[in-house]
């Protein structure tokens, strides 16, 4: 592996100062499951690696009905996957995290790291955005919060500026009668990157849907909201005709590319199918 200098800061301020001092030569490492692969494959050649695993303030998984879900930057994907509270209160997040890599990978990889890598096909991003997740960011200029829906600017690109660290992400408590789902489409059942991923979050109000959020993964440079489909469902019952319309609207809003995993046309067709299924699955869970 390409050699690098190595630091283990023990506070967030120290990590920010190291990042500020070394600028573009430095890479932050949490789990390392993506970064070390990129260094080995010479996709990145950092002179400095800043491992943040020794920063106690970046740990911590807290999940309950009253406060919602807070996930520190060092919380592994496997810790979220095996949390009974997350499975009960945030089923779409639980569905997405078990899709990442293998157990060995999930024991090292962090969810915040998955967010910061900003891969268009990352499984966790659609359900996190649909759930209204907000990123807590610290940097040389102080702290700020950014909703994940506004966090991604392109493949591997985010709103983070030099020296900034996402210290945690926070999900609001689920509303009464809320339902959420994530459906991934891939070519096999494990160790797979998404061909298409669709997440839905909504609330049941009698017979109709409210606060509908539909987020599509792997069909645009960033995860995208299917806003036209959301508006079609808002205040309406999710009957088969409405699901069909919403699926078509989501399909029209997607901007997929042809690549090694699927053609653009196939991806677009699957957006329609998965959107219908994900809405139905989320609605099912509201009862």
């Amino acid at each position: 592996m390409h050699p690098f200098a190595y630091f283990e800061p023990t506070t967030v301020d120290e990590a920010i100062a190291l990042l500020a001092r070394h600028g573009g030569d430095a890479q932050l490492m949490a789990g390392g499951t993506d970064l070390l692969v990129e260094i080995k494959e010479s996709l990145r050649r950092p002179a400095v690696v800043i491992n943040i695993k020794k920063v106690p303030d970046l740990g911590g998984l807290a999940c309950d009905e009253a406060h919602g879900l807070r996930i520190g930057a060092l919380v592994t994907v496997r810790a979220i996957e095996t949390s009974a509270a997350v499975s009960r209160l945030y089923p779409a997040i639980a569905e997405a995290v078990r899709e990442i890599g293998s157990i060995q990978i999930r024991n090292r990889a962090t969810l915040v790291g998955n967010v910061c890598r900003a891969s268009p096909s990352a499984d966790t991003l659609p359900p996190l955005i649909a759930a209204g997740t907000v990123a807590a960011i610290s940097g040389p200029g102080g702290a700020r919060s950014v909703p994940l829906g506004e966090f991604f600017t392109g493949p591997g690109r985010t709103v983070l500026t030099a020296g900034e660290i996402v210290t945690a992400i926070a999900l609001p408590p689920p509303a009464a009668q809320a339902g959420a789902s994530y459906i991934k489409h891939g070519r096999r059942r494990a160790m797979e990157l998404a061909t298409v991923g669709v997440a839905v979050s909504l609330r049941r109000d009698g017979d109709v849907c409210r606060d509908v959020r539909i987020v599509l993964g792997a069909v645009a440079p960033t995860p995208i909201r299917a806003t036209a489909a959301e508006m079609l469902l808002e205040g309406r019952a999710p009957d088969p005709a409405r699901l069909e319309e919403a699926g078509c609207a989501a399909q029209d809003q997607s901007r997929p590319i042809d690549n090694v995993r699927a053609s653009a046309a196939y991806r677009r067709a699957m957006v329609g199918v998965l959107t219908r299924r994900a809405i139905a699955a989320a609605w099912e869970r509201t009862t």
Partner: protein
Amino acid sequence: MTDGLHAITVTINGEARPLRVAPSRTLLDVLRTELGLTGTKKGCDVGDCGACTVLLDGTPVNACLVLAVEADGAAVTTIEGIAPAAGQLHPLQQSFMDLGASQCGFCTPGIIVMAKALLDRHPDPSEEDIRFGLAGNICRCTGYTKIIEAVKDAARRLAAAPPPAGR
């Protein structure tokens, strides 16, 4: 660390090992090269194949994606530390032999370490549990059927006669 090397101590299969390592060295390379523990295999070296699976403080990880410096102060169990004592086999090792769950054998150490972690957590796993648990371990010879049968067989052996605490 004037020479760029970091002094670390890692407990490998129960024995504390002081080491001096460059930060860019992986735990996998240090196990195989510095410590001569070549039972842990280097397959893809990018976390896809699972041949380098070891237990880091009891948790299965890909040793190729752990920096050796990160293992400072940790306990690592490799395939060499799975058997309860010299001259004995872990029930998983016996089951893999008895049921022909190994062909070329390259993936076997990683699979046995991963299966041990699985059985530690789920002593009576369903077939789905085993398939889900071993999803990160690739075998290109066996077609997996015999591997899954061997893990089930080992679970039965362990239920009948739990071994003494391993290292």
